[in-house]
């Protein structure tokens, strides 16, 4: 095998990273829906011929560890039949996908007569059919109520997608134009990756490009192992709880038993709760990705997130549990819940091994979508999704947590829109949108504060809301003596003077003009015992009116 010199290795490492960045920009420029071009809910990966993750663009952490499963599913399904110019597509969480709204395009890269790389694009689509608009269906008890399932399919050959297949897929969604536009953007970005990889191979030769890929993975494996080796030896348990499954069952446990031995980790999730009837179950690729995400958060940020850095981690689970359900169970919520609980359980266990690296818990996701009419735009309905009043991030050995920066699975990467723009575009009035005092978990370094939102509906007649999420009973966890943060508390204050708390898994809540949604988001968990907090920092928080 050709061995690249260290300089060529660095050069190709830069090239692979630059290629995924360029693919990401191409997606941003060409994607149709706002969930992609505004919230950037998509990810890019390059894999080698053995389906090993080589490079990825830092978009959505929860996607990243899951992408190789998609490539492997294509290999399993098509094997030697894979040809240059093929375009593969999948979304089925039981065949290489994470949850149904995430479609994945997989394109093989051939050079010098053989398969060398895979170019992969995953994106969250605005709709994928199923029982509710936008894929999150708290009432689903089977995956069939969540939308269209696509096991790995050959979507096209010679780099052209089959028009009839594309039509079939988009016909099964409520927003065919958006889904088609986003699908075409994904294919374009995947082909851009193919083209750029081919130019690398043309310049350096296939053997050298492959050897460099292997060398890059070996270096990040060694990097990760060096860091893990510096942690304390032992076995620890960590657990985190979901509030409920929406069907009456409460306190659903995710339990991680983590063993650190030498430069390796074993993460055993076998003691987690049995699978549940609702969409909180986590598909196996998503579970593996959540564990990898937790470890990535504990390593140095500069460790390259590729197959190499995940090699020290062995993941064990039991089928039939919430982290590995039997085929057919609903899973749509899993990229946020129970991903967040898996991450928290793993971080809690490993906080004992590497206390300086552990961080307080980040917030939970509690979505609200409102569908109604606006008197200023007769004849048009609107759908508004709650992204304001985000929860807080956790504190750490380095300092206090970020306020209003979101959840474990997004970690400051999801932007909420302008209040002014929302008021101009929707019949909504934002009376208040500020930090929520007292929401952060106390600690040597406290968590960040969650947001507070008071929003009045000025709709034309009745409207309706759905919720999907978790975290009104359990707040983000404190670590190493730090306190848990306040959980979410959402209230609906009716125009008629009555009031009730919103639950996290409700469908079809009727709303009237003048009703007010009062969101009090949870904060981030604290790190370290509160009694060690610098009194000056506590005084500053008091002076800022945040306690």
């Amino acid at each position, binding site marked *: 095998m050709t061995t690249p010199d260290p300089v060529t290795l660095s*050069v190709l490492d830069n090239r692979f990273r630059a290629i995924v960045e360029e693919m990401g*920009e191409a997606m941003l420029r060409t994607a149709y829906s706002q969930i992609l071009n505004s919230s950037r809910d998509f990810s890019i990966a390059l894999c080698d011929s053995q389906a090993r993750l080589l490079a990825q663009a830092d978009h959505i952490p929860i996607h990243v560890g899951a992408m190789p499963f998609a490539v492997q599913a294509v290999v399993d399904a098509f094997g030697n039949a894979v040809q240059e110019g093929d375009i593969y597509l999948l979304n089925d969480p039981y065949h290489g996908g994470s949850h149904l709204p995430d479609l994945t395009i997989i394109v093989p890269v051939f050079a010098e007569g053989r398969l060398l790389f895979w170019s992969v694009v995953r994106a969250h689509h605005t709709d994928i059919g199923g029982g509710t608009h936008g894929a999150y269906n708290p009432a689903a008890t089977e995956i069939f109520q969540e939308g269209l399932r696509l096991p790995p399919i050959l979507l096209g050959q010679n780099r052209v997608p089959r028009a009839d297949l594309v039509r079939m897929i988009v016909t099964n969604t409520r927003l065919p134009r958006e889904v088609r536009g986003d699908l075409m953007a994904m294919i374009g970005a995947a082909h851009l990756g193919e083209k750029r990889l081919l130019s690398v191979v043309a310049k350096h030769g296939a053997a050298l490009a492959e050897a460099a890929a292997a060398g890059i993975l070996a270096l990040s494996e060694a990097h990760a192992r060096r860091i893990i080796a510096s942690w304390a030896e032992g076995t620890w348990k960590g657990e985190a709880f979901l509030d409920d499954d929406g069907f009456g069952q409460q306190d659903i446990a995710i339990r991680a038993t983590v063993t650190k031995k030498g430069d390796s980790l074993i993460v055993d999730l076998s003691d987690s709760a049995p699978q549940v009837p609702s969409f909180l179950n986590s598909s196996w690729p998503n579970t593996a990705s959540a564990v990898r995400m937790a470890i990535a958060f504990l390593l140095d940020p500069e460790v390259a997130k590729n197959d190499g850095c995940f090699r020290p981690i062995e993941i064990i689970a039991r089928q039939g549990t919430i982290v590995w359900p039997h085929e057919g169970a609903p899973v749509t919520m899993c990229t946020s819940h129970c991903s967040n609980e898996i991450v928290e359980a793993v971080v809690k266990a490993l906080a004992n091994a590497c206390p300086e690296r552990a961080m307080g818990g980040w917030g939970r996701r509690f979505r609200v979508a409102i569908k109604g009419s606006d008197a200023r735009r007769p004849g048009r309905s609107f759908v508004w999704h709650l992204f304001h009043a985000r929860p807080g991030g956790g504190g*750490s050995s380095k300092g206090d947590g970020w306020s209003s920066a979101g959840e474990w699975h997004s970690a400051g990467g999801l932007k909420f829109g302008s209040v002014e723009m929302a008021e101009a575009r929707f019949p909504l*009035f934002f009376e208040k949108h500020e930090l929520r005092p007292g929401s952060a978990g106390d600690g040597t370094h406290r968590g*960040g504060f969650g947001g507070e939102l008071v929003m009045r509906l000025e709709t034309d007649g009745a409207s309706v809301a759905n919720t999907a999420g978790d975290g009104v009973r359990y707040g983000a966890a404190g670590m190493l003596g730090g306190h848990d943060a306040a959980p979410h508390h959402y209230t609906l204050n009716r125009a008629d003077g009555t009031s009730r708390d919103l639950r996290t898994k409700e469908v079809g809540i009727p709303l009237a003009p003048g009703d007010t949604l009062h969101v009090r988001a949870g904060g981030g968990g604290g790190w370290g015992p509160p009694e060690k907090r610098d009194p000056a920092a506590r005084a500053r928080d008091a002076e800022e009116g945040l306690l």
Partner: protein
Amino acid sequence: MSGPDDRSDEARQAMSYRIGVDVGGTFTDVVCVAADGTTTLAKAASTPADQSEGVIAGLAVLAGRLGLALPDLLARTERIVHGTTVATNALLERKGARVAMLTTEGHRDVIEMREGLKPERYDLRLPAAPALVPRRLRLPVRERIRPDGRVEVPLDRASLDAAIARLKAEKVEAVAICFLHSWRDDSHERATADAVRAALPGVFVTTSAEVLPQIKEFERFSTACVNAYVGPVVSRYLARLRGRLAEAGYGGPVFVILSHGGVAPVEEAARLAAGTALSGPAGGVAAGVALAQRGLGRDLITFDVGGTSTDIALVQDGEATLGRGRTVAGERIALESLDIVTLGAGGGSIGHVGAGGTLQVGPRSAGAVPGPVAYGQGGTEPAVTDANLVLGYLDADNFLGGARTLDRDGALVAFGRLGAALGIDAMAAAEGVHRLANVRMADGIRVATVRRGVDPRDFTLLAFGGAAGLHASAVARELGVTRIAVPVFAAGLSAWGMLHTDLRYEMARSEIGTGGVPDDAALRTIWAGLESEGRARVGAWFGGTVETKRAADMRYGEQVFEIAVPLEAVAWDTPGLTQRVTDAFHARHESLFTYALDGEEVVLVNARLAVIGRLPPMPAPHAAGVRAPAARLATRRARLDGAAADLPVFDFAALADGQAILGPAIVESDTTTVLLLPGDRAEMDARGWLSVTLPGEG
């Protein structure tokens, strides 16, 4: 460039000068263009504590080179244009004013929530960044305006008086007044500003609508807070500069180059201090535009390699590319700004083995102190400049025209250590650092081009700043670029560029209603209002010709992001204007994103107007006169692509017009060095640049 002026007294008497001053991290560059086009460059050490000291020192050096006393030079100077990093440094070092914010009750945390975003996706231990204005100084005022202009809550005097009492007690130096929907109606902000000015005379007051009258509160509030934070610092600096110049005998106009690449009088730069954040690198882009006008080519990549960073921007069809603001030191400034990509790789960038085990270059820099190892000032880690020296591209005895001797042996020892860590020898390590610097610079250009959907191969690479000439040819090869230009005065090009740009005032107004594009009459009214206000403002700055350029920010109904649509080519006065503006948007959307959606609702969000005051044209460049082709100065042993090679060395300043040089070769002057690779063909252009053609890709 010329040496001491040797013309007759009469000739000098008749001359008038225009002077550009660019303050960099290490050097202050001063460029003077005389009436006959003669261009002279002088340098002085920058003085970070008070940049105006270095400016005066640079002017004194310049006067010496021209054989004049400083007062005589200044007495004959028509105008001075200045690029300053005072605002940027105040932000980076967090040394701005003590700022308070008066803001709509119920919304005091806009600048701290940062739209839910945090940098560094995988660094969850990154401590939360403190807001530029702490929460206890973000004081709520009871008032509320609706997006359609309706007053929901009138401005409440009691809450305003309470806030003003706090401002007095807190002894603030600046106040940013930031109310929701002031883009629609800024009467509450103005009334509040009047009250604050009356109660706290001498305090710097800025309102969000005056800085950026655009919808989207985070961008507007953040820009206003940055303006209040740097405003007092910039004002004080410019007042000191004016004072020093007056003392030295200068009474003419002083302009400051702004982030959008145009210039404005010092008073305007002080008022809109946040708009000076890119004042430093803007001069280089202005130079690109000026050289495009002189025939260098309509499409250029400006490639400015300095000591710690490389600035990259595009000139397309002769115009600089503008973007909607940028983030400086973590703070959002949403003013119209040049779209400059800054990369942490320059001559001082350090080569090292990263934690992951691969060779890396930058972003750490040796800076001015200790500087590269070869400076012999205590640096121990090898920098890119060290690699260029060890590889034979730089002359150890004639760096900066002999102003500094370089220690090649010391640099070689440092590369020996770096190589040992990688298992390669010192020369291979040096070559690796040079090569990786090239790769990183090429990736920076990809960010500015391919990632914005632009093919760099259609462009000419304009290489300037001290170190660009050593990397340009290799970087161009990485990208498939086949044309490079290196100006004779590459090291002072930013200061030169400032002299070649016009007065500019960028205006924007949000005009979003409940959607759609306004009708013909409404469109004309909106832009007529901008025109009269803009012409009045620029007309107050000078008496020359004023031009305007219309543009709009538009989007499809449910999209989140607007795109900038140039409207210069849209006929304005005939019926059907709304349709033409709408069509211009569809066409722009298609060219940017490959598709348009005819039939979909189109929304106009912001009306924009650039108001441009044309400054008197600069004299044509001074003709060097016919001279014989320069012979090679020397032959230097260098390392190219892993092998030793003897390269001919030429004196840049002595090249005759039209003289051709084939690579491999080195072309060097006191302030810059150009490395030509095998296959390159360079030709001296009479208009003042070395034009390099690379072998094509096929």
